């Protein structure tokens, strides 16, 4: 059995990024790089046509990722990526539309757009990279900052409760909701693939690490330690089925968390419009009939 089928070898991330933009601007150890790899890997395995791939991103560290993808990329305004993507996806149903958002981008300034994108269920794959902090502006508290964590605007520790973005998306009606850690890149890739393959709106929360700002402020250790923590204590349910007992009770479940088969909005709209046109044509021909 000398012939080896190495599916992982088939994917070289360099063939999907804009080499002239490298090295990218992310801090050392930033989890967003792993998340971007998982997205590109998923697209590659689905053999996405990058000429017809549109990546729309907002503002912030996550927002800058679109510039590295060798596709049609749009780096738009803070919080509005889903609204831009809605226009793009409705106007151009032939495109595969992916958005990359940060946690503040998606849940704070863009929270309304998220809710309604979920409700509308238009075919968009939405990645929210949750690193619990506004990294690019220097480390302010975000809607997903865990309790008691220190940020530059929570000097006494965060007293606000954090959003459960997946519960929010599911409650708002998103067709597909999932969550994964960056540590488990192949698993994240599979989740993104499932999201990309879903006919409606797919919301995927990626638990990422801000090592340089959030990690340092809260003394969470080196990049490697933060990555290991994802596995050992942070959100163990990803590993629930691979070990005999969970490391600790599951806090944030991972994997595909909810899925429904509500109609995809774009297709539903086009079908209704086509029916309307057909009806109008029938009436016109009846009116034009001399009898």
């Amino acid at each position, binding site marked *: 059995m000398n012939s080896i089928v190495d599916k992982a070898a088939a994917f070289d991330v360099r063939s999907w990024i804009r080499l002239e933009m490298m090295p990218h601007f992310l801090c050392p150890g930033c989890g967003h790089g792993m998340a971007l790899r998982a997205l590109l890997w998923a697209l590659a395995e689905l053999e996405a046509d990058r000429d017809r791939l549109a990546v729309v991103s907002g503002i912030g560290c996550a927002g800058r990722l679109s510039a590295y993808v060798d596709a049609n*990329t*749009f780096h*738009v305004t803070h919080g509005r990526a889903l609204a831009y993507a*809605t*226009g793009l996806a*409705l*106007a151009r149903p032939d*495109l595969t539309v992916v958005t990359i958002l940060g946690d503040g981008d998606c849940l704070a300034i863009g929270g309304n757009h998220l809710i309604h994108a979920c409700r509308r269920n238009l075919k968009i794959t939405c990645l929210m990279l949750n690193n619990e902090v506004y990294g690019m502006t220097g480390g302010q508290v975000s809607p997903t900052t865990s309790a008691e964590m220190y940020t530059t605007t929570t000097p006494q520790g965060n007293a606000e409760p954090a959003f459960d973005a997946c519960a929010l998306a599911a409650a708002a009606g998103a067709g597909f909701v999932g969550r994964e850690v960056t540590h488990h890149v192949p698993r994240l890739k599979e989740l993104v693939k499932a999201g990309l393959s879903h006919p409606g709106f797919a919301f995927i929360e990626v638990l990422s690490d801000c090592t340089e700002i959030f990690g340092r402020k809260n003394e969470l250790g080196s990049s490697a330690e933060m990555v290991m923590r994802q596995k050992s204590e942070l959100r163990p349910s990803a590993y629930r089925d691979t070990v005999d007992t969970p490391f600790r009770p599951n806090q944030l479940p991972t994997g595909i968390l909810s899925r429904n088969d509500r109609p995809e909005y774009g297709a539903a709209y086009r079908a209704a419009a086509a029916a309307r046109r057909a009806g109008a044509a029938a009436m016109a021909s009846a009116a034009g009939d001399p009898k």
Partner: protein
Amino acid sequence: MNAPDRPATRTSLRLLSGNHACALGAVAAGCRFFAGYPITPSSEVAERLSRLLPEVGGVFVQMEDELASMAAVIGASMGGVKALTATSGPGFSLKQENLGYAAGAEIPCVIVNVMRGGPSTGMPTRPSQADLMQARWGSHGDYPIIALAPASVREIHEQTIRAFALAETYRTPVVVLYDQVIAQLSETLELPRASDIPQVERRWASGPREHYRPYAPGDDGIPPMARPGSGYRVHTTGLHHSESGFPTQDPATVDRNLGRLLAKLERNREAIDAWQALWCEDAELLVVAIGISARASLQAVRLARARGVRAGLFRPITLWPFPEQALRAAAAGAKAVLVPELNDGQMRLEVERVLRAARVQGLHRSNGEPIAPAEIAARAEEMMKR
């Protein structure tokens, strides 16, 4: 008037309100996407388009808010589809964020702003002309923009069509500004035949992909745009960018691109400027007005002439960039200039800037009542007595 000649061929007469004429004009111009949010007094534009667009294979979507509707319009246009949104003052304020993006990233789009009173919620059902400066300077930073100011239902139809032509040609947002009175005024008009309406298309990128630079100026300073799906995989950003489209902070590069951006309308002023000048040749008193105020001014000028005052009317149709040269020419013989407007002097500021030496007065009102022709005529006569 240097606006394009009205087409010779006409179809049947229609009774239409300004907002409905706007919707019909948009579809006639090839608009196939509308995103909006309900707001008085512009909602009829959305309502009409929600019926019209699906009939022609377009898309109407009512978004969750004004920001989102502006964003969706830009998104659709980035996809290569002519796109429109319509709103009023409070919504126009919210749209400024993404309008700035469209200006900076050079994404064509058309924004209709049916002006109502302000500040804030103001008087939703009353006319105003107080968004002139916001239309020019509403978003942060320096950017070029076109604003058109129709004064009748027929002109709303015509200028909406023209707005798409300008947006597509110059890769810029175009604001169509009119007030509540003509928005909801119904007038009889003849609509041009569809075949008489020129379809102006965006210039799309062509040639070898590897040589394409998304923001390299063409001959006229307007870079051809890459249509998603055509094989040019480019980056679009609201950050300052180089010709490659990627972000830059290099001062020389920013100077070059921003310089081109700010100059791109200036170097095409001949095609962009539009105005109407009536009885200006011998005018000793020039009235400068737009929209409903211009309609009152026209009657006022007639009244003043009947009483022996040589009055003339200058009406900017393209409000931004402001038609300075035409105004200077029209005001060449004027001893006094009167600017009646439904705000506290926004256009007067611009007229004063253009006509530095002339005696300029404003006739300002912001209480929701239009200015009557007799008031303008009386003020004109008074100015000439001094």
